[in-house]
């Protein structure tokens, strides 16, 4: 899960999609890779004893940092509020690559909640995945940043398959329109075909919910929850259609880290 602009709703979608995927019968883990500004544990309402920071410092193993949540999915919490986490070096990223390899082996679906923007750390984690779900809003600023991210990914030569979710849509169909615009520009200028996964409507009931109460559980019939379930099904269809890559997540990440 990636985005060019911050605040598009990546962590919200990652946590709720993970719950949806879990409900669809998959063993799923969310890894909060938003180094320094991680908040997935707040959305899940848990306070894990070990976080990504312990893993990168070598204090905890990959098994230890994977914690259970009351809603089903496993979680690797990030290191929220730790400035040093935002400036991880290649050595830390190598440790992360090894840990992700182990986590991927133990789960059917791993959702990497990556940090917004075009920092090398974020890009490396996005490029480690076979599918990149770009989360954006229908506004021009968010679309522009999403396109910048797509352009960056395509230029790596190891671009994952790019999918798009448009979040905070105030009118049905706006997401499709925004996606068509992005598809046109991406196809024309960078030759990238973006696959549309769906839109998530803006819902005040969701916006003002309490932390730790994912709408998929507290408001299962609201439009947001239904949209998230639809996107989760679409994601699993992708997995079924295209299969898993033969190269490991560790190999893909290491290849990018060597380019740092």
């Amino acid at each position, binding site marked *: 899960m990636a985005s060019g602009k911050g605040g598009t709703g990546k962590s919200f979608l990652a946590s709720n999609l993970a719950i949806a995927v879990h409900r669809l019968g998959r063993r799923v883990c969310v890894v909060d890779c938003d180094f320094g500004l991680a908040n997935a544990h707040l959305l899940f309402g848990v306070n894990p004893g070990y976080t990504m920071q312990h893993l990168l410092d070598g204090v905890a193993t990959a098994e230890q940092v994977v914690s259970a949540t009351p809603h089903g999915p496993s979680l690797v919490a990030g290191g929220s509020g730790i400035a040093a986490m935002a400036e991880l070096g290649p050595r830390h990223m190598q440790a992360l690559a090894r840990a992700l390899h182990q986590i991927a082996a133990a789960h059917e679906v791993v959702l990497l909640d990556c940090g917004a923007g*075009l920092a*090398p750390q974020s*890009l*490396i984690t996005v*490029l480690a995945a*076979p599918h990149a779900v770009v989360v954006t809003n*229908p*506004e*021009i*600023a968010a*679309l*522009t940043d999403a*396109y*910048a991210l797509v*352009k*960056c990914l395509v*230029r*790596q*030569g*190891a*671009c*994952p*398959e790019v999918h798009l979710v448009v979040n*905070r849509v*105030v*009118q049905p169909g706006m997401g499709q329109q925004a996606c068509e*615009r*992005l598809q*046109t*520009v991406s196809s*024309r*200028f960078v*030759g*990238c*075909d973006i696959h549309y996964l769906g839109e998530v409507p*803006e*819902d*005040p*009931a969701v916006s*003002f919910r309490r932390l730790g109460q994912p709408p998929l559980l507290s408001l299962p019939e609201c439009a947001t929850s239904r949209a998230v379930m639809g996107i989760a099904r679409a994601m699993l269809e992708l997995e079924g*259609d*295209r*299969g*898993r*890559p*033969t*190269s490991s997540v560790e*190999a*893909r990440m*290491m*290849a*990018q880290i*060597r*380019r*740092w």
Partner: protein
Amino acid sequence: MIRGPILPQLREGLWSIVSHRLTLVEHGLELVMEGLDCSGGQLGVVDGLARDAAGAPVLVLLAVDGDALLIARTLAVADFAARVGEALAAAVPEARFCAGALPRVIVVGTEASRSSLEQVARLPIPGLQVCRLEPFRIAGSERFAVLWMTTAAAGVVGAAQVTSPPREFAVPAGREAEWRHLREQCQRIDPGVRFDGDRHWQRITWNGSLLGELWSERDALFGRARLGAADPLRRELRTETDLRQFTDRLLRAFSLAAGLEKTSAAPEPAPASERLAATRHAAAGRGATPAGESLRSMLATMRLSPEEYSALGGTALAAGEQTEAAVVADRAAAVDAARSPAKPA
């Protein structure tokens, strides 16, 4: 069973076949108009006016058996093309020719008009191209091979060389260095890598396997590696990075074609889509070579062009700066409406 010639011998019948398959004669060649008379009706008409992949006009002449005026007509047409030159593009705006492009002449015939074609091929006309269609049947369907009797540079060749001379790729202006570099890189992949095609389109093959395609459009050079049916990614080859990524993909296609890929991973054949995904990720390893562009330097040079901004904003953004604000205002209004007491909270 006795079969007559597959290709019709009458002008109308032959033209009806050729005119719909001009792109087989030359990649990207497209018929735009028919019946161009440039000799006051004395020598007949040019069968077709076409536009090539570079947007230049091409006068297509058909040679049929017993056409006594073929040589005279070819001379008249070539003279017309030289006389009118780039003004032809402006004179026929509906054909959407590229401004400044000079017209050229292609003469197309069959075995029945071979002797006439050979005479035409000997004419000292710069830019004249002559080809003969060789029909054959395969799996019940009729095809024809295009055999060139002149090179693109109008060097006349003898009949014995009829099928051999490859036509030179018309490298877009300013892209010669990229073209040279690409050929060198392909030779480094394997000396058996071959380039063949026509003026505007080249196939890159190894041992009969298609590795990729290269073609020119206007003044740009494009490439597409063949990594599988689901790999439609075409790239404009402008920068060193573009070239490196393209050759990376060609290398990948080569390793797949040569069976080198089997040693790396899957014990059993993976579906095409999976191979594609693996392809993309394995390419990352090559990007990590010391000579490759680093991630940070790539990020430092990443810019969106004004065209990209404009395309993202659409016509509305181009009309004024307030568009984004208007979108935000609309959204805020809609959110406010949704938060009204009438709605369930």
